[in-house]
């Protein structure tokens, strides 16, 4: 084959039509930062790339409703998340997370939709959105559906996305007083891919934890929401002991795998430490970063 087709639809409906064939050589192309690597290594041999860069501005918009819920268009770049005033005010954890994700040039073009769809478990954005109870709005040939970000992944580089289906938007419910954090542990440089990613959120009602989220990623084959650890926390008063118990449970329930970043034994130990510190950070409200 000498070359492939690059198309730039201007509406999401047309993009979906152009993707609909389900042919493995046909894929959406947003920032291109992940898909270019796959093309360069021959992991993906394109027949048609459907660039989403020509879609109207509404697909990269960020807005907040009266209750403090946020909508983020799939084509919003990671730099926009980093700098947007609404994001910084309503969900500062998102803006903070961007600072240590890749580099300025990658963030300038990489999109929220691409970061959610790629399916690499070593991604920083999905666990944070999952801890915020974010919902991905998917649009495809058979219409639109809502999937919690925590349920988007079925395995290593595997997602629930059907052929022709796009992540169109992300909706985050109002934080309602919850405090969320993300802790990224790298084994080489500070801005490397995470070896362990832990996102957590705590909501207090009086002196009790009324709801908790514990998400583990990077160390595992896919992002994992650890409800067993959340159950340890819910209804309890925050304390070092409770956080340590939850962290032990989180580590025991994480399906940690070996990879180039470290052995599973090492990473399991780190998951426990990072969940414990993450819960403390969420409770204390500010993170070290």
């Amino acid at each position, binding site marked *: 084959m*000498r*070359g*492939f*087709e*690059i198309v*730039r639809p201007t509406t999401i409906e047309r993009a979906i039509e152009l993707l609909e064939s389900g042919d493995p050589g046909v894929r959406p*192309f947003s920032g*291109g*930062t992940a898909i*270019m*690597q796959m*093309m*360069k290594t021959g992991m993906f041999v*394109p027949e048609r*790339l459907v*660039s989403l*860069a020509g879609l109207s501005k509404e697909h990269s918009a960020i807005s907040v409703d009266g209750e403090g819920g946020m909508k983020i268009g799939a084509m919003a770049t990671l730099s926009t998340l980093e700098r947007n005033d609404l994001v910084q005010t309503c969900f500062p954890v998102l803006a903070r997370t961007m*600072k240590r994700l*890749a*580099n*300025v*040039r*990658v963030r*300038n*073009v990489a999109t929220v939709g691409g970061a959610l769809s790629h399916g690499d478990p070593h991604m920083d954005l999905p666990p944070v959105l999952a801890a915020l109870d974010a919902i991905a709005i998917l649009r495809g040939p058979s219409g639109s559906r809502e999937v919690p970000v925590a349920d988007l992944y079925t395995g290593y580089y595997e997602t629930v996305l059907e052929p022709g289906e796009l992540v169109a938007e992300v909706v985050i419910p109002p934080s309602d007083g919850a405090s969320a954090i993300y802790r990224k542990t790298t084994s080489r*440089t*500070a*801005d490397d891919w995470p070896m362990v990613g832990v996102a957590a959120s705590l909501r207090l009602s009086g002196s009790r934890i009324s709801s908790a989220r514990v998400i583990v990623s990077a160390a595992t084959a896919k992002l994992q929401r650890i409800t067993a650890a959340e159950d340890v926390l819910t209804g309890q008063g925050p304390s070092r002991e409770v956080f340590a118990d939850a962290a032990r449970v989180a580590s025991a329930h994480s399906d940690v795998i070996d990879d180039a970043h470290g052995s599973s034994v090492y990473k399991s130990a780190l998951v426990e430490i990072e969940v414990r510190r993450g819960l403390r950070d969420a409770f204390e409200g500010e993170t070290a970063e």
Partner: protein
Amino acid sequence: MMEKVNLDGAVVNRIRFKLNGREKNLDVASHENLVDLLVRLDHFSARESCGQGLCGCCTVLVDEIPVSACLTLAQLVDGSEVKTAEGLAPPGELDFVQRAFIEEGAFQCGFCTPGFVMMTHALLKETVDPSETEIREYLAGNLCRCAAYPEIIRAVKTAARNRPERTEKP
């Protein structure tokens, strides 16, 4: 419509874009990235080194935003404005960032320098007086094999001081 094929037998599309202020109008193959295209146009300041977005040697500005040209499909710059180090000053002259890099001796082999210079331009456009931390964070995705980092950071500070709008205005 009949597909057009180039001399290598690759299917091409015609694109128009501005390169350092000059209109370009030419056939581009689907697999070409922006470094390939620039080299074809005799622009050699953006170099493909890692090819993965990591090192910044291929940094160019597309519509004033710094990107890795190695991860940019050339056909997708259709309609955009691309700026490379060649376009910073008229031939034979240097602009204030380039001069700052020379003044501070911020390179040895120079391979990484155009990338750092373009990033510095972008940084100084966003932040008037970047702190040391801001400089380090912004340039963290640019690698210098000769490890001229301390001099590079000094050069950015010098450039910030010497920027034309600062020295020309009273």
